């Protein structure tokens, strides 16, 4: 067996040698037989066939090539998309941002002056308290909220700072302020993202949409309508806020990380798109949270206590979250109980 393979190997080697000799001899023959004076017509003309900008832009939106320095990102020669991003950021974004935020402020102002503050309705349960949010829930909320406010202000500074603040305080003071704002934006993004995760985990269970929400919306909710439709721990409006925060928070986190770690996941055009999404969702997020702040403080009497002390007035809780109060009282049997209910089997 071994002997046979050795023989085959020798044969193959011999055949290869013969082949090499043959191919080596061919060009020599060709050179001898070719006419010496004619120039090759099929070979490319090194001067006239050069690449040019228009041709390369027809092949793709960017022009890039090979580069001999270690920074391979520099191999990108021209990306005219930078001008498009600039057009978006400087012509559209200030107007979109102003419209979203001032529009929401105007809307809330209009609501306040027509509907007024939603007052607490008193009942025989007034004055008694029920725990709505425990210490961890409040900590998570306020950690995220504090970060959000600073992130929102420092984020708006990127768009409006040079237009509104810089003429007032001068370029040097504004640059110092913006530098700190930028550090705050970059570093507070981390506790903010952590807060989004915490809030999602803690409140997900109570925010699954169900049939009660449909009826709540049909009845116009507590915000617009007159009565108090049934609601569990969170009504449909609050569930919308929860899912908005979870969705927008995730989007802001992902797009922000793309910019914090340049070229980690996207190229330059990807980062331009990420910045566009980040700023558009950012102003929408700010507008939505303005409404959340309004209803949780000025807009509704008794609502702030839920996140302030954590304990809300039982009359308020019964009016706004009747199903939750019933469940809570049945579960803990510790809160103040007036009516007797059939405790659901657990």
């Amino acid at each position, binding site marked *: 067996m071994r002997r046979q393979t050795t023989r085959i190997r020798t044969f193959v080697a011999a055949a290869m040698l013969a082949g090499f000799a043959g191919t080596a001899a061919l060009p020599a023959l060709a050179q001898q037989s070719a006419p010496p004076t004619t120039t090759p017509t099929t070979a490319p003309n090194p001067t006239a066939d*050069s690449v040019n900008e228009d041709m390369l832009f027809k092949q793709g939106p960017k022009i890039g*090539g090979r580069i001999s320095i270690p920074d391979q990102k520099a191999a990108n020669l021209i990306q005219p998309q930078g001008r498009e991003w600039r057009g978006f950021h*400087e012509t559209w974004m200030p107007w979109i941002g102003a419209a979203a935020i001032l529009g929401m402020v105007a809307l809330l102002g209009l609501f306040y002056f027509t509907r007024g503050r939603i007052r607490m309705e008193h009942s025989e349960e007034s004055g008694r308290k029920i725990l709505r949010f425990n210490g961890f829930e409040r900590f998570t909320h306020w950690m995220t909220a504090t970060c959000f406010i600073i992130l929102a202000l420092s984020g708006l500074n990127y768009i409006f700072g040079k237009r509104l603040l810089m003429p007032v305080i001068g370029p040097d003071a504004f640059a110092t302020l913006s530098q700190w704002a930028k550090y705050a934006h970059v570093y507070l993004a981390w506790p903010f993202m952590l807060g989004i995760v915490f809030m999602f985990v803690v409140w997900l269970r109570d925010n699954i949409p169900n049939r009660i929400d449909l009826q709540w919306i049909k009845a116009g909710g507590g915000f617009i309508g007159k009565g108090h439709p049934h609601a569990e721990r969170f009504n449909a409006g609050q569930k919308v806020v929860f899912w908005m925060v979870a969705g927008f928070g995730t989007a802001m986190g992902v797009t922000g990380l793309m910019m914090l770690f340049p070229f980690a996941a996207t190229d330059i055009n990807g980062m331009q798109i990420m910045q566009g999404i980040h700023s558009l969702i950012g102003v929408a997020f700010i507008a939505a949270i303005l409404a959340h702040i309004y209803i949780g403080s000025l807009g509704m009497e008794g609502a702030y206590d839920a996140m302030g002390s954590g304990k809300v007035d039982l009359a308020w809780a019964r009016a706004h979250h009747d199903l939750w109060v019933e469940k809570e009282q049945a579960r803990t049997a510790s809160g103040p109980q007036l009516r007797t209910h059939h405790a659901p089997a657990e």
Partner: protein
Amino acid sequence: MARMKFLCDADRCIECNACVTACKNEHEVPWGINRRRVVTLNDGKPGERSVSMACMHCTDAPCASVCPVNCFYTTADAVVLHSKDLCIGCGYCFYACPFGAPQYPRVGNFGSRGKMDKCTYCAGGPEPDLSTIEYEKYGSNRLAEGKLPLCAEMCSTKALLAGDGEMIAQIYKERVIKRGYGSGAWGWKTAYRETVAI
């Protein structure tokens, strides 16, 4: 006053990278930053060309427009410069620049990129001309000495031209007419919204 521009005659550029090296040495540019670079297009194929590229000192510069702290300014020679004292290292100019000119001492580090650095057209920065502080932040100021950017001055094939836009366009036009071909003034359409008509 002149309207300073760069023009790279790609039919002459031999990708020797001397402009890159000269720039780094003249301005003591930090490690990792290249104010000028040479990109080879269609490498190894027929019609291959190399283009030396840096900040083009655009007309209506996108970097200056998007800067959130307005740290850019344009000199009387139409050179686009910036103040490293005002720069916050946000990266916007890098997104906006069509030529990848703005660079930062650090890439990641949670986005604390440090102060942006780019080609100054050998014209320094906002500090007093030819001062030590200007040199430390922006490199040498050859324009203040009456000299043109070193990259173009020492280009061995005179592929890279620097100077008044009309003058260098004229030189390029004459070359193209004489030799009968030219791959165009790279980046001019994007930077200056015009091209060298021949």
